[in-house]
């Protein structure tokens, strides 16, 4: 513990105008460098094994910028990309390949990781990815702990209590773990799938695989597209179920779609779409809702009435129907093709969802607007903008997190529901709802997995987000313990 400090000082440690004239964070780190240095070594290790991926992401970004500003020639971009791809990465398909073939009926596997069979090789890669992700999480946690014990001036802040309460909240932790597993699935989708979207879904005829042909007794090659045609799941006649191999030595953890595409790859990529739409739209409407909440709570009166009217009008629109209408109206325009329609959906969802969030945090915002410290700040001559940002928003932001977390599930369901109807995300880009829709005729057959698995994933993720929201709520406000009317309305239900 840093001694001789009083808890009245600023809790972020960055400002150095406390009564005791505290030192800056840099100086504090310089005086006791060991914990910070060890922590930095951890970062180097974590980034080091994934350096190739970081480089690739960097070049992709650079290439995009370069193209936009037309300062980089395509050749330079291509050169950069190959250079980045040549750097080995721990969590790539190249380091731990799972696609291989065998020489004879029971011969050893070729081209897979350490000659293991594809299933085991894939499992190794999945285990590595999740081990890495959890190691990264542990590193972050360690960093917070070290900062708290070694570098922060204050011994205690209210936020410490929030975190400590969350540490004892099993249900919230369950939610956190589920959400984290889902986020990792989305982030590492290309590395997690047994095959890639480009190979398997978008351009299957541009890629070839080698396999042992039992009929001729030789190793043959076939395009992925043709192999897919032979390994679709179409009920009793032909089926590649979960956790099985198809005739071409490819392992399918979740089985295949009727088109023979790998369901796990499809769902992992679909998680990316669902999560990006959910997080982006909730972020926008959360920030907007927060701004509105502080504004209306501060000014009240006419401002409040106007926002009440606007939000009530938006809330009077049936969400799913507005989504259907907008998607249909904008069909075929550039906006609908921007990122396969994800941008359009995000924008509409953000526009439609903020009134619910605003309404949910209006109570706490009004409460904080009555607080004495707001009066004090006003009498000190602080500008309304600063008061709202510095003295009101921090109090409300916790509640906002609760409601955004709970509404995120609803957004995921709404997007899946749209895809189920054949709207929203344009095929062939993977989306969970489309898998449910595609598998609909096969639910009662041997190919039950096509509809069932995506539905279970959605249910799990929505439960996870709701549990996380519960956890945060109990952590920031242990008195509340549910019961408020808005909670039920905000919680992501299967309404859509």
């Amino acid at each position, binding site marked *: 513990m840093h001694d001789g400090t009083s808890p009245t000082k600023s809790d972020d440690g960055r400002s150095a105008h406390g009564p005791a004239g505290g030192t800056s964070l840099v100086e504090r780190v310089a005086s006791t460098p060991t914990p910070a240095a060890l922590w930095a070594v951890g970062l180097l290790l974590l980034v080091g094994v994934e350096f190739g991926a970081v480089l690739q992401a960097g070049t992709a970004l650079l290439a995009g910028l370069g193209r936009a500003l037309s300062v980089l020639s395509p050749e330079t971009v291509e050169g950069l990309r190959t250079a980045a791809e040549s750097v080995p990465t721990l969590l790539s398909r190249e380091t731990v390949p799972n696609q291989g073939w065998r020489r004879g009926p029971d011969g050893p596997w070729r081209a897979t990781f350490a000659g293991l069979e594809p299933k085991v090789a894939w499992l190794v890669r999945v285990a590595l990815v999740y081990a890495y992700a959890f190691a990264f999480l542990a590193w972050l946690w360690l960093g917070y702990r070290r900062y708290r014990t070694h570098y922060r001036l204050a011994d205690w802040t209210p936020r410490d209590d929030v975190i400590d309460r969350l540490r004892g909240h099993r249900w919230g932790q369950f939610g956190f773990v589920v959400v984290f597993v889902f986020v990792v699935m989305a982030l590492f989708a290309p590395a997690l799938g047994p095959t890639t979207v480009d190979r398997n879904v978008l351009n299957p005829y541009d890629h070839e695989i080698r396999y042992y042909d039992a009929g001729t007794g030789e190793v043959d090659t076939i395009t992925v597209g043709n192999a897919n045609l032979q390994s679709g799941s179409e009920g009793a006649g032909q089926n590649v179920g979960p956790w099985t191999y198809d005739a071409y030595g490819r392992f399918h953890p979740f089985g295949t779609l009727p088109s023979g595409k790998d369901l796990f790859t499809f769902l992992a990529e679909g998680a990316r779409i669902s999560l990006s739409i959910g997080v982006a739209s909730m972020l926008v409407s959360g920030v907007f809702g927060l701004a509105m909440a502080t504004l209306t709570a501060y000014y009240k009166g006419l401002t409040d009435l106007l926002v009440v009217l606007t939000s*009530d009008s938006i809330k009077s629109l049936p969400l799913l129907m507005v989504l259907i209408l907008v998607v249909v109206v*904008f069909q075929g325009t550039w906006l609908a093709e921007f990122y396969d329609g994800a941008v359009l959906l995000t924008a509409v969802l953000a526009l439609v969802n903020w009134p619910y969030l605003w309404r949910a945090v209006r109570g706490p915002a009004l409460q904080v607007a009555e607080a004495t410290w707001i009066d004090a700040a006003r009498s000190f001559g602080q500008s309304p903008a600063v008061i709202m940002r510095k003295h009101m928003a921090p109090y409300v932001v916790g509640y906002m997190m609760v409601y955004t977390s709970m509404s995120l599930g609803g957004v995921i369901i709404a997007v899946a529901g749209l895809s189920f109807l054949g709207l929203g995300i344009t095929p062939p880009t993977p989306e969970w709802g489309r898998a*449910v829709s595609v598998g609909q005729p096969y639910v009662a057959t041997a190919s039950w997995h096509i509809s069932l698995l995506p539905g279970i994933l959605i*249910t799990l993720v929505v439960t996870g987000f709701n549990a996380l929201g519960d956890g945060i709520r109990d952590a920031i406000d242990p008195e509340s313990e549910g019961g408020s009317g808005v909670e039920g309305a905000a919680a992501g*239900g299967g309404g859509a």
Partner: protein
Amino acid sequence: MSRWRYFAQRVVLAVPVVFLGTTVAFLIVRLGPIDPAAAILGAQQIGSPEYYQLREQLGLTQPLWEQYTDFMWRMVTFQLGRSWVISPGTRVNDLIAVYAPRTIWLGLWSVLIALCIGIPLGFYAGLNPNTFGDYFASFGGIVWRAMPNFWLAVILVTLLSQSQSLFGIDWEGLWVSTQVVTPPDLSVFAEPTTLVTTPGEAWLQVAVAVKQIAPAALVLGSASMGNEMRIGRTAVLEIINADYIEAARAKGVSGRRLVWKHVFRNALIPLVPIITAEAFLLVGGSVLVETVFAINGLGSLFFQAAVQGDLPLVISLMYIFILLLVAANILQDFLYTLIDPRVGYERR
């Protein structure tokens, strides 16, 4: 402020809300990139004489402002126009009269199912906290709520249509023969007098219609069922630990009386917004559930109209749904003031 004055104020405030909501729907349709005339004739007809004739006929050549005022006036007077694509020339009012009863029937039963299962389960869990039954009901409610409607519908349709081989009970042939995926036969309600004149036959038809709608209603009610359970549980738990329950118990009020008179009545209050919020779930979810269960109600009508570009139908249905949702909101506030006079008057 009296109860009635407050209620009147709510109704007055609802007018601009309906107005703005409808305007938004109009703007999406008219200012969006969709060309109504091209939607009817097909894109290759753009520029042809018929195309311009149709534009003239649809009133698209008038200034937007005139179109808007004209539209709003027709909405207010419920002259909803005629369908263009789905059923060309048919008045929207007639279409709604045909399709709405099925949706109302579906909505009625999903609310009933949600209420009759969700609230008792929630109260049971609240009265027996931290028992196995409580955990089972609570966790079940949470997961049930998280399931997407459309997925649940898909699974249920399959389970029921294969029930003979899966469970040994044939749902389709159970009691009376019905299909799993079918619009309910509501012809009996066209002549309600038969319910009295030939009760045997008429009530049998009602029962058949209930059986036809039950699976869809279960799915549609599922989300709110979970909500009601959860809120009901929390409410009961909160009240049981309140001082006045302690006092009543000390006075010697019997257990049964305590639960019915003191706990349940008060536990219903936080359930009011949940129950009226069901209107939202029903209106939105009806599209998906009606599509899967092939119930030709307003939801599937809206979906068909939207996909096929039948704009007058789409916008009229949107207007109807907005009216429904706003009415549900007013009902919610009204119920609040009825059940708990402390809430409401000064809330806004």
